[in-house]
């Protein structure tokens, strides 16, 4: 049945989007900035996984956590070097926080893409699948073995992250800093450390997404731009800073694109999300979960 097929494929895509969007949402939640270099975490993961598996002959199952750590480390370094100044009392003069974040993460994105392009090469190598290319039946739909396993890994990570943020000690600290940075610091949480944790987590999640999809989207220097654009749309639609919202919006976008590419237009499937984003922001400028007042 076509509809079920499209639905399942859409959900699968959505889960991968969620890996990207959750991290971005977390970052926005605690720092109130959008990380324009998020796609590059994805790229780092894709490359780490592929290079480890292909050149170092590491088994794919081991290359995956390797990718996670690569992304986490890059995230941590980025936070340390570039983002720290944002909350070190830097914002009252000259560039404002938002402006600084946009410029710096944008430049970082270009930097990382070109560094990889220069030092690793512009051509893609296909990432190895996690399992053989067997086809599996999920109900009436047919999905490739790798895709299924990758989706399961992704689902596990999404669920795990949501549980982590909601219930764990670290997760509570994250929530505290997201709600009230000063208050949290007064209560003994170090916001700087939490920011580091969040960036590492976000980087790791995006990197895993890149690794899981390295089989489908061969790692090239700018492979991360595409999923990143999706992630930006998702976090605005799902409410910047809301993890659950990001997950829901990711799934919805995946399904929408899946159906839209068949029933509306294949060529413009990537623009659906963008168009919806603009319409939503026109009608409800505060996003889907904002409040109705002029700020004072």
């Amino acid at each position, binding site marked *: 049945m076509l509809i079920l097929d499209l639905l399942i494929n859409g959900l699968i895509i959505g889960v991968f989007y969620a890996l990207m969007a959750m991290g971005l949402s977390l970052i926005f939640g605690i720092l109130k*900035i959008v990380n324009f270099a998020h796609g590059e975490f994805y790229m780092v993961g894709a490359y780490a996984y592929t290079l480890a598996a292909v050149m170092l002959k590491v088994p794919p199952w081991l290359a995956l956590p390797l990718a996670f750590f690569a992304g986490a480390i890059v995230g941590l370094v980025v936070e340390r070097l570039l983002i720290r100044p944002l909350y070190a009392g830097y914002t009252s003069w000259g560039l404002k926080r938002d402006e600084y974040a946009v410029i710096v993460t944008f*430049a970082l994105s270009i930097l990382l893409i070109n560094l990889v392009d220069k030092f690793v090469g512009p051509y893609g190598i296909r990432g190895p699948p996690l399992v053989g290319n067997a086809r599996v039946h999920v109900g009436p739909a047919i999905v490739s073995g790798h895709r299924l396993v990758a989706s399961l890994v992704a689902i596990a990570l999404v669920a795990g992250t949501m549980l982590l943020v909601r219930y764990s000690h670290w997760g509570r600290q994250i929530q505290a800093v997201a709600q009230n940075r000063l208050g949290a610091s007064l209560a003994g949480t170090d916001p700087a450390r939490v920011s580091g944790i969040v960036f590492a987590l976000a980087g790791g999640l995006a990197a895993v997404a890149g690794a899981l999809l390295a089989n489908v989207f061969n790692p090239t220097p700018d492979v991360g731009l595409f999923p990143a654009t999706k992630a930006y749309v998702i976090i*605005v639609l799902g409410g910047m800073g809301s993890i659950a919202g990001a997950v829901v919006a990711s799934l919805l976008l995946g399904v929408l694109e899946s159906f839209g590419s068949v029933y509306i237009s294949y060529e413009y499937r990537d623009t659906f999300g963008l168009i919806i984003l*603009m319409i939503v922001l026109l009608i409800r400028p505060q996003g889907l979960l904002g409040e109705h007042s002029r700020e004072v």
Partner: protein
Amino acid sequence: MRRIVDTRGRMRTDFLASLAVLAIVAFLPAVMTSDYWRGVIVVSMYFALLAISWNLLAGYTGQFSLAPATFAMIGGYTTGLLAYHFGATAVLGIPAAIVVGGVIGLLLAAIVMRLRGPYLALTTLSFAEIIRVVIANSIDFTRGDLGLNVPSLFERRLTSYYVMLAVVAGIQAGVYWLLRGPGGLYLRAIRDDEVAAAGRGVDTVRWKTYAFALSAAIGGLAGALYAHFAQFVSPELGLVSQAGLVISMVVIGGLGSLGGPIVGAVLVYVTSELLREVGGYQLIVFAILVILFARFFRDGLWGLLRSGYERRFVTSDVRTVTAE
């Protein structure tokens, strides 16, 4: 020779200094006889226009749009399509590009009017991408990624050189005229604190709209001129990476200053051409520079030059603010 500095005086000095920079560029062909390098300067003038337009919107009005390159692409395609489908010449194409750019700028303004910061950036990014994808996919109409051939405007490169230079000077003068009047006060107030600006009676909606429309119109003009010079236009003109290039030029040159965009555009583009011969590291270098400048030299090169100048030539009545 020491004078007290007031903002209007400072702006005038900046404007005159920027004209001096353009005058230097005017003399360059006397020593720079290679057609290739003259072409490089022409293209850097194209970027200078985009830089001026983005600086007006982001540096002076605080609207950090990621779509400056989009309007260049729109302008280029307006004149290109008019030529391709109707055989129109640049005499029609260029004014049309300005108008179309401005109108679409109005549209963008309407879309993002109530947005700030990251929402604004993301929405302009989406806007830029949608338009680029539409142009790239409308193969019947635009020839998509193949691009359009655009008739040349001037036979001699040197003519293009001086025309572009004159356009930059003209736009710079226009922008200066706007900024030194009450409009400049309103835009900067919006940038500094939109909430307070509204409370003071500044019509923030109207002035943000003006800023977007004007910035877009300048972008359209730039794109059209470039299209006729390069005799080609493709969706690549509107890539986000192009927007990133423009943004780096402004940040390195000096965001929010009158002379920064021109200096930034020329330096960055010329340097990138020089480095191209050495081996493609230019984007890496610029990205690092942008990060360094954003972090440590928020006023860019122009700001550095300016403080050097002021330290030597100007009395400071403003350095120390006595404690209460």
